Protein backbone atom coordinates (compact mmCIF):
# COMPACT_ATOMS: atom_id res chain seq x y z
CA UNK A 1 0.00 0.00 0.00
CA UNK A 2 1.52 3.33 -1.04
CA UNK A 3 0.80 5.11 2.22
CA UNK A 4 3.77 7.42 1.78
CA UNK A 5 2.55 8.83 -1.49
CA UNK A 6 -0.90 9.67 -0.13
CA UNK A 7 0.60 11.37 2.89
CA UNK A 8 2.55 13.94 0.90
CA UNK A 9 0.19 14.65 -1.93
CA UNK A 10 -2.94 16.61 -1.20
CA UNK A 11 -5.84 14.23 -0.86
CA UNK A 12 -8.00 14.48 -3.88
CA UNK A 13 -11.40 12.79 -3.91
CA UNK A 14 -10.32 10.39 -6.63
CA UNK A 15 -7.38 9.20 -4.58
CA UNK A 16 -9.36 8.46 -1.44
CA UNK A 17 -11.90 6.37 -3.29
CA UNK A 18 -9.10 4.46 -4.97
CA UNK A 19 -7.56 3.78 -1.61
CA UNK A 20 -10.81 2.84 -0.01
CA UNK A 21 -11.44 0.40 -2.80
CA UNK A 22 -8.04 -1.22 -2.38
CA UNK A 23 -8.17 -1.75 1.35
CA UNK A 24 -11.23 -4.03 1.41
CA UNK A 25 -9.76 -5.87 -1.58
CA UNK A 26 -6.62 -6.64 0.34
CA UNK A 27 -8.61 -7.61 3.40
CA UNK A 28 -10.82 -9.94 1.37
CA UNK A 29 -7.74 -11.46 -0.20
CA UNK A 30 -6.19 -12.27 3.15
CA UNK A 31 -9.47 -13.53 4.57
CA UNK A 32 -9.95 -15.79 1.56
CA UNK A 33 -6.41 -17.11 1.74
CA UNK A 34 -6.68 -17.70 5.47
CA UNK A 35 -9.95 -19.58 5.02
CA UNK A 36 -8.32 -21.91 2.49
CA UNK A 37 -5.32 -22.26 4.78
CA UNK A 38 -7.55 -23.32 7.66
CA UNK A 39 -9.11 -26.11 5.58
CA UNK A 40 -5.71 -27.22 4.32
CA UNK A 41 -4.08 -27.27 7.72
CA UNK A 42 -6.96 -28.71 9.70
CA UNK A 43 -6.04 -32.40 9.23
CA UNK A 44 -2.40 -31.67 10.04
CA UNK A 45 -3.22 -29.77 13.21
CA UNK A 46 -5.77 -32.44 14.07
CA UNK A 47 -3.19 -35.22 13.92
CA UNK A 48 -0.67 -33.23 15.95
CA UNK A 49 -3.25 -32.50 18.65
CA UNK A 50 -4.66 -36.01 18.50
CA UNK A 51 -1.30 -37.59 19.11
CA UNK A 52 -1.31 -36.03 22.60
CA UNK A 53 -4.83 -37.18 23.45
CA UNK A 54 -6.11 -40.30 25.10
CA UNK A 55 -7.34 -42.86 22.58
CA UNK A 56 -11.02 -42.46 23.43
CA UNK A 57 -10.85 -38.64 23.07
CA UNK A 58 -9.31 -38.59 19.62
CA UNK A 59 -12.35 -39.03 17.44
CA UNK A 60 -15.14 -37.90 19.71
CA UNK A 61 -13.75 -34.63 20.99
CA UNK A 62 -13.88 -31.52 18.84
CA UNK A 63 -11.09 -29.76 20.75
CA UNK A 64 -8.01 -29.68 18.59
CA UNK A 65 -5.69 -29.83 21.59
CA UNK A 66 -6.39 -31.75 24.79
CA UNK A 67 -6.60 -29.87 28.09
CA UNK A 68 -4.35 -32.52 29.69
CA UNK A 69 -1.86 -33.57 27.02
CA UNK A 70 -0.25 -36.99 27.43
CA UNK A 71 2.91 -38.35 25.85
CA UNK A 72 1.97 -41.98 26.32
CA UNK A 73 1.19 -42.42 22.62
CA UNK A 74 4.78 -41.64 21.77
CA UNK A 75 6.44 -43.63 24.54
CA UNK A 76 4.27 -46.53 23.47
CA UNK A 77 5.90 -46.41 20.03
CA UNK A 78 9.22 -47.41 21.57
CA UNK A 79 7.68 -50.84 22.12
CA UNK A 80 7.52 -51.24 18.35
CA UNK A 81 4.85 -52.90 16.23
CA UNK A 82 4.40 -56.66 16.48
CA UNK A 83 7.71 -56.91 18.36
CA UNK A 84 9.59 -55.10 15.61
CA UNK A 85 11.14 -51.80 16.65
CA UNK A 86 9.87 -48.77 14.74
CA UNK A 87 13.44 -47.93 13.78
CA UNK A 88 13.58 -51.06 11.59
CA UNK A 89 10.81 -49.68 9.38
CA UNK A 90 12.51 -46.31 9.20
CA UNK A 91 15.87 -47.83 8.25
CA UNK A 92 14.16 -49.93 5.56
CA UNK A 93 12.29 -46.96 4.12
CA UNK A 94 15.42 -44.86 4.22
CA UNK A 95 17.45 -47.52 2.42
CA UNK A 96 14.85 -47.79 -0.31
CA UNK A 97 14.49 -44.04 -0.64
CA UNK A 98 18.22 -43.36 -0.84
CA UNK A 99 18.71 -46.26 -3.24
CA UNK A 100 15.89 -44.92 -5.42
CA UNK A 101 17.34 -41.43 -5.46
CA UNK A 102 20.77 -42.68 -6.54
CA UNK A 103 19.24 -44.80 -9.30
CA UNK A 104 16.96 -42.09 -10.64
CA UNK A 105 19.68 -39.44 -10.69
CA UNK A 106 22.11 -41.66 -12.55
CA UNK A 107 19.87 -43.46 -15.05
CA UNK A 108 17.50 -40.59 -15.84
CA UNK A 109 20.29 -38.07 -16.36
CA UNK A 110 22.15 -40.44 -18.72
CA UNK A 111 18.98 -40.97 -20.74
CA UNK A 112 18.13 -37.30 -20.72
CA UNK A 113 21.63 -36.41 -21.92
CA UNK A 114 21.22 -38.74 -24.90
CA UNK A 115 17.84 -37.20 -25.78
CA UNK A 116 18.95 -33.61 -25.32
CA UNK A 117 22.57 -33.55 -26.46
CA UNK A 118 23.37 -36.44 -28.79
CA UNK A 119 22.04 -36.72 -32.34
CA UNK A 120 21.59 -40.38 -33.07
CA UNK A 121 19.43 -42.39 -35.41
CA UNK A 122 16.04 -43.27 -33.95
CA UNK A 123 16.09 -40.60 -31.28
CA UNK A 124 12.69 -39.15 -32.11
CA UNK A 125 11.04 -42.55 -32.07
CA UNK A 126 12.53 -43.43 -28.69
CA UNK A 127 11.50 -40.04 -27.34
CA UNK A 128 7.91 -40.63 -28.42
CA UNK A 129 7.97 -44.05 -26.72
CA UNK A 130 9.34 -42.47 -23.55
CA UNK A 131 6.55 -39.88 -23.50
CA UNK A 132 4.06 -42.69 -24.10
CA UNK A 133 5.16 -44.46 -20.93
CA UNK A 134 4.46 -41.23 -19.06
CA UNK A 135 0.75 -41.75 -19.66
CA UNK A 136 0.71 -45.52 -19.21
CA UNK A 137 -1.28 -46.66 -16.16
CA UNK A 138 1.08 -48.51 -13.85
CA UNK A 139 -1.51 -51.19 -13.15
CA UNK A 140 -1.04 -52.79 -16.57
CA UNK A 141 2.51 -53.64 -15.56
CA UNK A 142 1.66 -54.69 -12.03
CA UNK A 143 0.81 -58.32 -12.65
CA UNK A 144 3.35 -59.23 -15.36
CA UNK A 145 6.13 -57.55 -13.37
CA UNK A 146 5.09 -59.48 -10.31
CA UNK A 147 5.16 -62.71 -12.31
CA UNK A 148 8.57 -61.79 -13.71
CA UNK A 149 10.13 -61.06 -10.32
CA UNK A 150 8.51 -64.14 -8.87
CA UNK A 151 10.07 -66.30 -11.57
CA UNK A 152 13.40 -64.65 -10.82
CA UNK A 153 12.92 -65.54 -7.16
CA UNK A 154 13.04 -61.91 -6.09
CA UNK A 155 9.85 -61.69 -4.07
CA UNK A 156 10.49 -60.40 -0.55
CA UNK A 157 13.63 -58.57 -1.69
CA UNK A 158 14.09 -54.89 -2.49
CA UNK A 159 15.16 -55.59 -6.08
CA UNK A 160 11.68 -55.26 -7.63
CA UNK A 161 11.25 -51.93 -5.86
CA UNK A 162 14.63 -50.58 -6.96
CA UNK A 163 15.45 -52.10 -10.34
CA UNK A 164 13.17 -49.80 -12.33
CA UNK A 165 14.78 -46.76 -10.71
CA UNK A 166 18.17 -47.80 -12.12
CA UNK A 167 16.67 -48.41 -15.56
CA UNK A 168 15.15 -44.95 -15.96
CA UNK A 169 11.55 -46.20 -16.06
CA UNK A 170 10.30 -43.01 -14.37
CA UNK A 171 9.69 -41.04 -17.53
CA UNK A 172 8.63 -37.93 -15.61
CA UNK A 173 12.17 -37.31 -14.38
CA UNK A 174 13.74 -38.07 -17.78
CA UNK A 175 11.35 -35.54 -19.25
CA UNK A 176 12.14 -32.94 -16.59
CA UNK A 177 15.88 -33.31 -17.18
CA UNK A 178 15.57 -33.28 -20.98
CA UNK A 179 13.70 -29.99 -20.76
CA UNK A 180 16.38 -28.57 -18.52
CA UNK A 181 19.31 -29.76 -20.64
CA UNK A 182 17.78 -28.40 -23.83
CA UNK A 183 17.78 -24.95 -22.31
CA UNK A 184 21.48 -25.04 -21.46
CA UNK A 185 23.58 -22.88 -23.79
CA UNK A 186 24.60 -24.95 -26.77
CA UNK A 187 27.97 -23.21 -27.15
CA UNK A 188 29.32 -24.87 -24.03
CA UNK A 189 29.21 -28.44 -25.22
CA UNK A 190 29.97 -27.52 -28.84
CA UNK A 191 33.15 -25.83 -27.65
CA UNK A 192 34.05 -28.82 -25.51
CA UNK A 193 33.59 -31.12 -28.48
CA UNK A 194 35.86 -29.02 -30.63
CA UNK A 195 38.44 -29.32 -27.88
CA UNK A 196 38.18 -33.06 -28.23
CA UNK A 197 35.97 -33.89 -25.23
CA UNK A 198 33.97 -37.10 -25.50
CA UNK A 199 30.28 -37.32 -24.53
CA UNK A 200 31.04 -38.92 -21.17
CA UNK A 201 33.31 -36.03 -20.25
CA UNK A 202 30.79 -33.41 -21.40
CA UNK A 203 28.00 -35.19 -19.52
CA UNK A 204 29.95 -35.46 -16.30
CA UNK A 205 31.92 -32.21 -16.22
CA UNK A 206 29.66 -29.75 -18.03
CA UNK A 207 26.05 -30.83 -18.26
CA UNK A 208 25.53 -32.51 -14.88
CA UNK A 209 26.88 -29.62 -12.80
CA UNK A 210 24.70 -27.18 -14.74
CA UNK A 211 21.65 -29.37 -14.17
CA UNK A 212 21.79 -29.14 -10.41
CA UNK A 213 18.33 -27.59 -9.96
CA UNK A 214 16.67 -30.32 -12.05
CA UNK A 215 18.65 -33.00 -10.22
CA UNK A 216 17.67 -31.63 -6.82
CA UNK A 217 14.00 -31.47 -7.80
CA UNK A 218 14.11 -35.05 -9.08
CA UNK A 219 15.93 -36.27 -5.99
CA UNK A 220 13.40 -34.77 -3.60
CA UNK A 221 10.39 -36.00 -5.53
CA UNK A 222 11.93 -39.46 -5.77
CA UNK A 223 12.64 -39.57 -2.05
CA UNK A 224 9.11 -38.52 -1.16
CA UNK A 225 7.47 -40.87 -3.68
CA UNK A 226 9.53 -43.77 -2.44
CA UNK A 227 8.75 -42.91 1.18
CA UNK A 228 5.02 -42.71 0.46
CA UNK A 229 4.89 -45.75 -1.81
CA UNK A 230 2.43 -48.28 -0.53
CA UNK A 231 1.38 -50.54 -3.37
CA UNK A 232 4.91 -51.65 -4.33
CA UNK A 233 5.96 -52.78 -0.85
CA UNK A 234 2.47 -54.22 -0.26
CA UNK A 235 2.88 -56.55 -3.20
CA UNK A 236 6.54 -57.45 -3.01
CA UNK A 237 7.38 -57.61 0.71
CA UNK A 238 5.92 -60.20 3.04
CA UNK A 239 8.46 -60.45 5.86
CA UNK A 240 7.59 -57.82 8.51
CA UNK A 241 11.30 -57.35 9.23
CA UNK A 242 11.60 -55.93 5.72
CA UNK A 243 8.51 -53.72 5.87
CA UNK A 244 8.71 -50.03 5.08
CA UNK A 245 7.13 -47.36 7.28
CA UNK A 246 3.96 -47.38 5.14
CA UNK A 247 3.54 -51.13 5.53
CA UNK A 248 4.42 -51.03 9.21
CA UNK A 249 1.75 -48.42 9.71
CA UNK A 250 -0.81 -50.49 7.84
CA UNK A 251 0.15 -53.50 9.98
CA UNK A 252 -0.36 -51.35 13.08
CA UNK A 253 -3.84 -50.41 11.86
CA UNK A 254 -4.77 -54.00 11.11
CA UNK A 255 -3.48 -55.41 14.38
CA UNK A 256 -4.19 -52.84 17.04
CA UNK A 257 -5.81 -49.90 15.29
CA UNK A 258 -8.98 -49.85 17.34
CA UNK A 259 -7.37 -50.98 20.58
CA UNK A 260 -4.62 -48.37 20.43
CA UNK A 261 -5.97 -45.40 18.57
CA UNK A 262 -3.54 -42.99 20.20
CA UNK A 263 -0.50 -45.00 19.18
CA UNK A 264 -1.80 -45.24 15.63
CA UNK A 265 -2.22 -41.47 15.34
CA UNK A 266 1.21 -40.82 16.85
CA UNK A 267 2.79 -43.32 14.47
CA UNK A 268 0.99 -41.69 11.51
CA UNK A 269 2.52 -38.35 12.42
CA UNK A 270 6.01 -39.76 12.96
CA UNK A 271 5.80 -41.50 9.57
CA UNK A 272 5.07 -38.14 7.93
CA UNK A 273 7.94 -36.24 9.54
CA UNK A 274 10.64 -36.98 6.93
CA UNK A 275 8.38 -35.82 4.11
CA UNK A 276 7.38 -32.69 6.00
CA UNK A 277 11.03 -31.95 6.76
CA UNK A 278 11.96 -32.32 3.10
CA UNK A 279 9.12 -30.08 2.14
CA UNK A 280 10.11 -27.33 4.57
CA UNK A 281 13.74 -27.48 3.47
CA UNK A 282 13.21 -27.66 -0.29
CA UNK A 283 9.74 -26.29 -1.07
CA UNK A 284 11.15 -23.83 -3.63
CA UNK A 285 12.66 -26.60 -5.74
CA UNK A 286 9.53 -28.70 -5.52
CA UNK A 287 7.14 -25.94 -6.51
CA UNK A 288 9.36 -24.66 -9.33
CA UNK A 289 9.80 -28.21 -10.61
CA UNK A 290 6.02 -28.73 -10.63
CA UNK A 291 5.43 -25.42 -12.37
CA UNK A 292 7.86 -26.04 -15.22
CA UNK A 293 6.57 -29.55 -15.82
CA UNK A 294 3.17 -28.07 -16.63
CA UNK A 295 4.36 -25.17 -18.74
CA UNK A 296 6.52 -27.12 -21.10
CA UNK A 297 4.27 -30.13 -21.40
Amino acid at each position, binding site marked *: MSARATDVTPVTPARTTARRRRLPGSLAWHLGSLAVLAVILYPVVW*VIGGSFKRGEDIVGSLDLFPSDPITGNYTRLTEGIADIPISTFFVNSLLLAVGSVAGILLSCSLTAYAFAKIRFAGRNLLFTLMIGTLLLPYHVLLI*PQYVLFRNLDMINTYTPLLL*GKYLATEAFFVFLMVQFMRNLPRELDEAARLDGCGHLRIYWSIVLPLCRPALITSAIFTFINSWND*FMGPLIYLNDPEKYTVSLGLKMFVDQEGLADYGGMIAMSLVALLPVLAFFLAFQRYLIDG*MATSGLKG
Partner: protein
Amino acid sequence: MGHAVTHAPATADRAAASEPRHGPARSPRPAALKRRRRRDNLAGYLFMSPWIAGFLLLTAGPMIASLYYAFTDYNLFDAPKWIGLDNFAEMFGDPRWRHSVQVTLWYVVVGTPIKLLAALGVALLLAQKRRGQAFYRAAFYAPSLIGASVSVAIVWKAIFSDDAVVDRTQKLFGVHAGGWTGDPDLIIYSLVALTVWQFGAPMVIFLAGLKQVPRELYEAADVDGAGKLRQFWNITLPMISPVLFFNVLLETIHSFQIFSSAYIVGGGAGGNACGPADGSMVYTCYLYVQGFENSRMGLASAMAWMLLVAVALVTAVLFWSQKRWVHYEEGGR
Protein backbone atom coordinates in the same frame (compact mmCIF):
# COMPACT_ATOMS: atom_id res chain seq x y z
CA MET B 1 2.37 -33.06 -25.29
CA GLY B 2 3.23 -31.86 -28.68
CA HIS B 3 6.82 -31.06 -28.05
CA ALA B 4 8.20 -33.94 -30.08
CA VAL B 5 7.87 -31.23 -32.72
CA THR B 6 10.65 -29.25 -31.09
CA HIS B 7 13.07 -31.75 -32.57
CA ALA B 8 12.65 -30.31 -36.02
CA PRO B 9 14.98 -27.33 -35.58
CA ALA B 10 17.53 -29.58 -33.90
CA THR B 11 17.87 -31.75 -36.98
CA ALA B 12 17.87 -28.71 -39.21
CA ASP B 13 20.92 -27.13 -37.62
CA ARG B 14 22.75 -30.44 -37.53
CA ALA B 15 24.46 -29.76 -40.87
CA ALA B 16 25.47 -26.27 -39.79
CA ALA B 17 26.94 -27.46 -36.50
CA SER B 18 29.06 -30.20 -38.00
CA GLU B 19 30.44 -27.89 -40.69
CA PRO B 20 34.15 -27.40 -40.00
CA ARG B 21 34.63 -23.93 -38.63
CA HIS B 22 38.33 -23.41 -38.90
CA GLY B 23 38.88 -23.52 -42.64
CA PRO B 24 40.12 -26.38 -44.74
CA ALA B 25 42.96 -27.36 -42.40
CA ARG B 26 40.75 -30.16 -41.02
CA SER B 27 40.61 -33.74 -42.25
CA PRO B 28 38.54 -34.54 -45.37
CA ARG B 29 34.99 -33.54 -44.65
CA PRO B 30 32.85 -36.56 -45.58
CA ALA B 31 34.99 -39.07 -43.71
CA ALA B 32 35.15 -36.99 -40.54
CA LEU B 33 31.44 -36.37 -40.68
CA LYS B 34 30.75 -40.03 -41.11
CA ARG B 35 33.03 -40.95 -38.24
CA ARG B 36 31.41 -38.41 -35.98
CA ARG B 37 27.95 -39.57 -36.90
CA ARG B 38 28.89 -43.17 -36.20
CA ARG B 39 30.38 -42.18 -32.86
CA ASP B 40 27.25 -40.19 -31.98
CA ASN B 41 25.03 -43.14 -32.79
CA LEU B 42 27.12 -45.39 -30.58
CA ALA B 43 27.25 -42.85 -27.76
CA GLY B 44 23.52 -42.24 -28.01
CA TYR B 45 22.65 -45.88 -27.60
CA LEU B 46 25.23 -46.37 -24.84
CA PHE B 47 23.78 -43.48 -22.84
CA MET B 48 20.28 -44.77 -23.52
CA SER B 49 21.09 -48.37 -22.63
CA PRO B 50 19.64 -48.32 -19.10
CA TRP B 51 16.41 -46.85 -20.41
CA ILE B 52 16.27 -49.29 -23.33
CA ALA B 53 16.86 -52.24 -20.98
CA GLY B 54 14.17 -50.91 -18.64
CA PHE B 55 11.75 -50.30 -21.47
CA LEU B 56 12.14 -53.83 -22.86
CA LEU B 57 12.33 -55.67 -19.54
CA LEU B 58 9.91 -53.68 -17.37
CA THR B 59 7.51 -52.02 -19.80
CA ALA B 60 7.20 -53.54 -23.28
CA GLY B 61 7.86 -57.15 -22.27
CA PRO B 62 5.43 -57.10 -19.35
CA MET B 63 2.77 -55.42 -21.50
CA ILE B 64 2.96 -58.21 -24.04
CA ALA B 65 2.95 -60.82 -21.27
CA SER B 66 -0.03 -59.13 -19.66
CA LEU B 67 -1.94 -59.11 -22.94
CA TYR B 68 -1.31 -62.85 -23.19
CA TYR B 69 -2.34 -63.52 -19.57
CA ALA B 70 -5.58 -61.65 -20.23
CA PHE B 71 -6.67 -64.55 -22.41
CA THR B 72 -5.58 -67.28 -20.01
CA ASP B 73 -6.52 -68.86 -16.74
CA TYR B 74 -3.44 -68.28 -14.60
CA ASN B 75 -3.10 -68.78 -10.86
CA LEU B 76 0.71 -68.36 -10.56
CA PHE B 77 1.29 -72.00 -9.70
CA ASP B 78 0.16 -73.82 -12.85
CA ALA B 79 1.15 -72.78 -16.35
CA PRO B 80 -1.27 -70.26 -17.92
CA LYS B 81 -4.09 -72.01 -19.80
CA TRP B 82 -5.55 -70.35 -22.90
CA ILE B 83 -9.26 -69.69 -22.41
CA GLY B 84 -9.96 -67.14 -25.13
CA LEU B 85 -12.37 -64.39 -24.13
CA ASP B 86 -13.64 -66.09 -20.97
CA ASN B 87 -11.97 -63.57 -18.65
CA PHE B 88 -13.67 -60.71 -20.44
CA ALA B 89 -17.01 -62.49 -20.42
CA GLU B 90 -16.69 -63.17 -16.70
CA MET B 91 -15.67 -59.57 -16.06
CA PHE B 92 -18.61 -58.00 -17.88
CA GLY B 93 -20.99 -60.42 -16.23
CA ASP B 94 -19.66 -59.76 -12.74
CA PRO B 95 -21.85 -57.29 -10.81
CA ARG B 96 -18.94 -56.52 -8.48
CA TRP B 97 -16.80 -55.53 -11.46
CA ARG B 98 -19.55 -53.31 -12.84
CA HIS B 99 -19.94 -51.78 -9.41
CA SER B 100 -16.21 -51.01 -9.25
CA VAL B 101 -16.42 -49.34 -12.66
CA GLN B 102 -19.32 -47.23 -11.43
CA VAL B 103 -17.54 -46.24 -8.24
CA THR B 104 -14.39 -45.27 -10.15
CA LEU B 105 -16.22 -43.30 -12.83
CA TRP B 106 -18.19 -41.45 -10.17
CA TYR B 107 -14.97 -40.68 -8.32
CA VAL B 108 -13.34 -39.36 -11.51
CA VAL B 109 -16.37 -37.39 -12.68
CA VAL B 110 -17.06 -35.75 -9.32
CA GLY B 111 -13.55 -35.44 -7.91
CA THR B 112 -11.54 -34.18 -10.87
CA PRO B 113 -13.68 -31.13 -11.78
CA ILE B 114 -14.04 -30.03 -8.16
CA LYS B 115 -10.31 -30.39 -7.62
CA LEU B 116 -9.46 -28.44 -10.77
CA LEU B 117 -12.03 -25.73 -10.01
CA ALA B 118 -10.56 -25.36 -6.53
CA ALA B 119 -7.07 -25.26 -8.02
CA LEU B 120 -8.02 -22.61 -10.56
CA GLY B 121 -10.01 -20.54 -8.08
CA VAL B 122 -7.24 -20.44 -5.52
CA ALA B 123 -4.65 -19.84 -8.26
CA LEU B 124 -6.63 -16.78 -9.41
CA LEU B 125 -6.69 -15.58 -5.82
CA LEU B 126 -2.97 -16.11 -5.34
CA ALA B 127 -2.09 -14.64 -8.72
CA GLN B 128 -2.65 -11.20 -7.24
CA LYS B 129 0.73 -10.09 -6.04
CA ARG B 130 0.32 -9.49 -2.34
CA ARG B 131 2.32 -10.05 0.78
CA GLY B 132 2.36 -13.65 1.92
CA GLN B 133 1.72 -15.03 -1.56
CA ALA B 134 4.76 -17.32 -1.49
CA PHE B 135 3.82 -18.60 1.95
CA TYR B 136 0.25 -19.45 0.94
CA ARG B 137 1.45 -21.08 -2.26
CA ALA B 138 3.82 -23.35 -0.35
CA ALA B 139 1.24 -24.19 2.33
CA PHE B 140 -1.44 -25.04 -0.23
CA TYR B 141 0.98 -27.24 -2.11
CA ALA B 142 1.99 -29.31 0.93
CA PRO B 143 -1.04 -31.68 0.88
CA SER B 144 -0.08 -32.83 -2.62
CA LEU B 145 3.12 -34.26 -1.19
CA ILE B 146 1.69 -36.05 1.82
CA GLY B 147 -1.77 -36.85 0.43
CA ALA B 148 -0.71 -40.20 -1.03
CA SER B 149 0.70 -41.47 2.26
CA VAL B 150 -0.82 -44.10 4.49
CA SER B 151 -0.69 -41.61 7.37
CA VAL B 152 -3.04 -39.14 5.72
CA ALA B 153 -5.43 -41.93 4.71
CA ILE B 154 -5.57 -42.99 8.37
CA VAL B 155 -6.22 -39.42 9.49
CA TRP B 156 -8.90 -39.12 6.83
CA LYS B 157 -10.62 -42.24 7.99
CA ALA B 158 -10.71 -40.85 11.52
CA ILE B 159 -11.94 -37.38 10.56
CA PHE B 160 -14.78 -38.81 8.47
CA SER B 161 -15.87 -41.51 10.90
CA ASP B 162 -18.96 -41.48 13.14
CA ASP B 163 -19.12 -38.64 15.62
CA ALA B 164 -15.89 -37.11 14.37
CA VAL B 165 -15.56 -33.55 13.18
CA VAL B 166 -17.29 -33.91 9.80
CA ASP B 167 -20.22 -35.77 11.32
CA ARG B 168 -20.56 -33.18 14.11
CA THR B 169 -20.40 -30.33 11.62
CA GLN B 170 -23.13 -31.74 9.42
CA LYS B 171 -25.27 -32.28 12.53
CA LEU B 172 -25.00 -28.56 13.22
CA PHE B 173 -26.78 -28.10 9.89
CA GLY B 174 -29.38 -30.68 10.82
CA VAL B 175 -27.96 -33.48 8.67
CA HIS B 176 -27.86 -36.74 10.58
CA ALA B 177 -26.06 -38.90 8.04
CA GLY B 178 -23.44 -40.35 10.36
CA GLY B 179 -19.79 -40.70 9.49
CA TRP B 180 -18.96 -41.04 5.82
CA THR B 181 -16.43 -43.82 6.04
CA GLY B 182 -18.97 -46.21 7.54
CA ASP B 183 -21.61 -45.52 4.88
CA PRO B 184 -21.46 -47.41 1.55
CA ASP B 185 -22.94 -44.43 -0.31
CA LEU B 186 -20.89 -41.73 1.35
CA ILE B 187 -17.43 -43.24 1.72
CA ILE B 188 -16.56 -42.37 -1.87
CA TYR B 189 -17.10 -38.68 -1.06
CA SER B 190 -14.52 -38.88 1.69
CA LEU B 191 -12.10 -39.99 -1.05
CA VAL B 192 -13.28 -37.14 -3.26
CA ALA B 193 -12.58 -34.78 -0.37
CA LEU B 194 -9.11 -36.29 -0.04
CA THR B 195 -8.25 -35.64 -3.67
CA VAL B 196 -9.73 -32.13 -3.58
CA TRP B 197 -7.62 -31.45 -0.50
CA GLN B 198 -4.59 -32.02 -2.76
CA PHE B 199 -5.52 -29.25 -5.21
CA GLY B 200 -2.11 -27.65 -4.65
CA ALA B 201 -0.27 -29.46 -7.44
CA PRO B 202 -2.55 -28.34 -10.29
CA MET B 203 -2.80 -24.93 -8.58
CA VAL B 204 0.96 -24.42 -8.86
CA ILE B 205 0.76 -25.23 -12.57
CA PHE B 206 -2.17 -22.84 -13.04
CA LEU B 207 -0.23 -20.12 -11.23
CA ALA B 208 2.74 -20.58 -13.53
CA GLY B 209 0.38 -20.30 -16.50
CA LEU B 210 -1.33 -17.19 -15.14
CA LYS B 211 2.03 -15.52 -14.67
CA GLN B 212 2.68 -15.79 -18.41
CA VAL B 213 -0.45 -13.94 -19.52
CA PRO B 214 0.79 -10.57 -20.84
CA ARG B 215 -0.34 -7.63 -18.67
CA GLU B 216 -1.02 -5.50 -21.76
CA LEU B 217 -4.01 -7.63 -22.66
CA TYR B 218 -5.76 -6.69 -19.42
CA GLU B 219 -4.75 -3.06 -19.75
CA ALA B 220 -6.21 -2.95 -23.24
CA ALA B 221 -9.39 -4.62 -21.98
CA ASP B 222 -9.61 -2.08 -19.13
CA VAL B 223 -9.41 0.73 -21.65
CA ASP B 224 -12.18 -0.90 -23.64
CA GLY B 225 -14.24 -1.07 -20.48
CA ALA B 226 -14.51 -4.86 -20.29
CA GLY B 227 -15.51 -6.11 -16.82
CA LYS B 228 -13.50 -8.57 -14.75
CA LEU B 229 -15.74 -11.47 -15.71
CA ARG B 230 -15.45 -10.69 -19.42
CA GLN B 231 -11.69 -10.40 -19.03
CA PHE B 232 -11.52 -13.79 -17.33
CA TRP B 233 -13.64 -15.41 -20.02
CA ASN B 234 -12.06 -13.76 -23.05
CA ILE B 235 -8.43 -13.32 -21.97
CA THR B 236 -7.45 -15.45 -18.99
CA LEU B 237 -9.20 -18.65 -19.94
CA PRO B 238 -7.96 -18.83 -23.56
CA MET B 239 -4.47 -17.82 -22.51
CA ILE B 240 -4.17 -20.53 -19.87
CA SER B 241 -6.02 -23.18 -21.89
CA PRO B 242 -2.83 -25.21 -22.63
CA VAL B 243 -2.14 -25.40 -18.90
CA LEU B 244 -5.77 -26.23 -18.24
CA PHE B 245 -5.55 -29.03 -20.79
CA PHE B 246 -2.41 -30.41 -19.17
CA ASN B 247 -4.07 -30.40 -15.74
CA VAL B 248 -7.29 -31.99 -16.97
CA LEU B 249 -5.34 -34.74 -18.75
CA LEU B 250 -3.03 -35.51 -15.85
CA GLU B 251 -5.63 -35.33 -13.10
CA THR B 252 -8.11 -37.48 -15.01
CA ILE B 253 -5.53 -40.17 -15.73
CA HIS B 254 -4.38 -40.12 -12.11
CA SER B 255 -7.91 -40.34 -10.72
CA PHE B 256 -8.58 -43.50 -12.69
CA GLN B 257 -5.66 -45.11 -10.89
CA ILE B 258 -6.55 -44.28 -7.28
CA PHE B 259 -5.54 -47.15 -5.02
CA SER B 260 -3.73 -46.57 -1.72
CA SER B 261 -6.13 -44.07 -0.18
CA ALA B 262 -9.18 -46.16 -1.13
CA TYR B 263 -7.50 -49.29 0.18
CA ILE B 264 -6.64 -47.72 3.53
CA VAL B 265 -9.75 -45.59 4.08
CA GLY B 266 -11.97 -48.50 3.03
CA GLY B 267 -9.95 -51.20 4.77
CA GLY B 268 -11.61 -52.52 7.88
CA ALA B 269 -10.23 -54.61 10.69
CA GLY B 270 -11.87 -57.64 9.11
CA GLY B 271 -9.55 -57.52 6.11
CA ASN B 272 -12.24 -56.03 3.89
CA ALA B 273 -10.25 -53.94 1.46
CA CYS B 274 -13.11 -52.24 -0.26
CA GLY B 275 -15.11 -50.32 2.31
CA PRO B 276 -18.58 -51.08 3.70
CA ALA B 277 -20.61 -52.97 1.08
CA ASP B 278 -17.85 -52.30 -1.46
CA GLY B 279 -18.60 -48.60 -1.15
CA SER B 280 -15.02 -47.56 -1.89
CA MET B 281 -14.17 -50.42 -4.17
CA VAL B 282 -12.45 -48.49 -6.92
CA TYR B 283 -11.26 -50.33 -10.00
CA THR B 284 -7.68 -50.95 -8.87
CA CYS B 285 -8.86 -52.23 -5.50
CA TYR B 286 -10.89 -54.91 -7.21
CA LEU B 287 -7.95 -55.63 -9.51
CA TYR B 288 -5.76 -56.11 -6.45
CA VAL B 289 -8.32 -58.36 -4.79
CA GLN B 290 -8.72 -60.55 -7.88
CA GLY B 291 -5.01 -60.73 -8.66
CA PHE B 292 -3.29 -60.89 -5.31
CA GLU B 293 -5.95 -62.15 -2.92
CA ASN B 294 -7.73 -64.60 -5.24
CA SER B 295 -4.64 -65.40 -7.34
CA ARG B 296 -6.60 -64.81 -10.55
CA MET B 297 -3.72 -63.34 -12.52
CA GLY B 298 -5.36 -63.91 -15.91
CA LEU B 299 -8.58 -62.19 -14.91
CA ALA B 300 -6.69 -59.35 -13.23
CA SER B 301 -4.63 -58.85 -16.40
CA ALA B 302 -7.81 -58.62 -18.44
CA MET B 303 -9.06 -56.01 -15.96
CA ALA B 304 -5.81 -54.08 -16.25
CA TRP B 305 -6.10 -54.00 -20.03
CA MET B 306 -9.65 -52.68 -19.77
CA LEU B 307 -8.31 -49.90 -17.57
CA LEU B 308 -5.62 -49.16 -20.14
CA VAL B 309 -8.21 -49.02 -22.92
CA ALA B 310 -10.41 -46.70 -20.86
CA VAL B 311 -7.52 -44.38 -20.04
CA ALA B 312 -6.34 -44.41 -23.66
CA LEU B 313 -9.87 -43.55 -24.85
CA VAL B 314 -10.17 -40.66 -22.42
CA THR B 315 -6.73 -39.42 -23.46
CA ALA B 316 -7.65 -39.67 -27.14
CA VAL B 317 -10.93 -37.80 -26.62
CA LEU B 318 -9.15 -35.07 -24.69
CA PHE B 319 -6.49 -34.67 -27.37
CA TRP B 320 -9.19 -34.60 -30.05
CA SER B 321 -11.22 -31.99 -28.16
CA GLN B 322 -8.08 -29.90 -27.75
CA LYS B 323 -8.57 -28.39 -31.21
CA ARG B 324 -11.79 -26.78 -30.11
CA TRP B 325 -10.76 -25.17 -26.86
CA VAL B 326 -7.02 -25.08 -26.42
CA HIS B 327 -5.24 -22.06 -27.88
CA TYR B 328 -1.55 -22.42 -28.45
CA GLU B 329 0.50 -19.29 -28.98
CA GLU B 330 2.00 -19.18 -32.44
CA GLY B 331 5.69 -19.93 -32.38
CA GLY B 332 5.35 -20.88 -28.71
CA ARG B 333 5.23 -24.41 -27.47
